[in-house]
């Protein structure tokens, strides 16, 4: 690939990304009232999105092979447990991550 072709490739990545980020704002401008259905989606989507993003982070976990998703399951339980107990976002995230790293580097390294 020549330098020009590389610049075009990177430019297209930027263009595609910005298209998806700006699209809703271009279609539904401040000047016209937003359709009721879109307002409903705006409110109903986020919870669904966060569920989707959790799965997205875990997309490469395989239940049938490797460590069977056990380190992930344990670390998520620790994260949720810590969060329900203290409700301190940073503590829950740090605790879950340290737990996962320990599991991976010590316990499950052989798998």
């Amino acid at each position, binding site marked *: *690939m020549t330098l020009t072709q*590389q610049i*075009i*490739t*990177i430019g*297209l*990545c*930027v263009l*595609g*990304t*910005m298209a*998806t*980020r700006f*699209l*809703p*704002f271009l279609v*539904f401008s*401040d000047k016209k009232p*937003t359709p009721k*259905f*879109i*307002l*409903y*989606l*705006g*409110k*109903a*989507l*986020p*919870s*669904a*999105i*966060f*569920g*989707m*993003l*959790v*799965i*997205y*982070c*875990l*997309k490469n976990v395989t239940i049938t092979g490797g460590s069977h998703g056990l*380190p*992930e399951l344990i*670390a*998520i339980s620790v*994260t949720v447990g810590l*969060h329900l107990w203290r409700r301190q*976002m*940073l503590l*829950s*995230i740090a605790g*879950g*991550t340290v737990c*996962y*790293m*320990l*599991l*991976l*580097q010590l316990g499950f390294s052989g798998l």
Partner: protein
Amino acid sequence: MRRKAFQAAFPHTIPIFAGFWFLGLAYGIYMNVSGFSFWYPMVMSLIIFGGSLEFVAVSMLLAPFAPAQTLAMTLIIQARHIFYGISMLDRFRGLDWKKYYLIFGMCDETFSINYTARIPEDVDKGWFMLFVTLLNHFYWFSGATIGGLVGSLLHFDTSGLDFVMTAMFVVIFLEQWLKEKKHYTAIIGLAGALLCRLAFGPDDFMIPTMVCILAGLTLFRKPIERAGGLV
């Protein structure tokens, strides 16, 4: 006003700092060992600012030139951002020039923080969201650049550190769950994504997931609205 917003925003970005530095370093190293100079991760992290796409872009740059395929791939990988825009239509309304940067920098993590953070009454919302976006952008940019520069010299065991992003989304999901009265939409998102992941595999399940979510929310609009408590 700006200082206060910065002080309120910074703590929310600490987990992202850890995650983005780790992933950014990994991305810079990956570009480095793929034979690209540090200019590539530096510029790409600055102007694309979308982690998963940037990893894929490395293989696009190594493959023969295919502009149409590049654009199509980009749109497929990034399509979920359309949902973030729809959710933020109302909150970005009336913001001045900041709005354009907020939309430009709305990656998964930035959207999640800006949507869920409880911004104190006396803190300017526009500046708060601007600093969250700017800090995250800076973490990713600096991580990728450093990775590209000195990546191959680093030797310490960080395996598993990427879980910080998973843990963050789990906590954000949980916070949202605890806030709402009914969990219809959370369940639609979680179950839809899980079923699509099982049916379509790890690389092709996001578009089907988005279709499932839209279909679910459209189909169950009445009960969801009747239940109320959408936050």
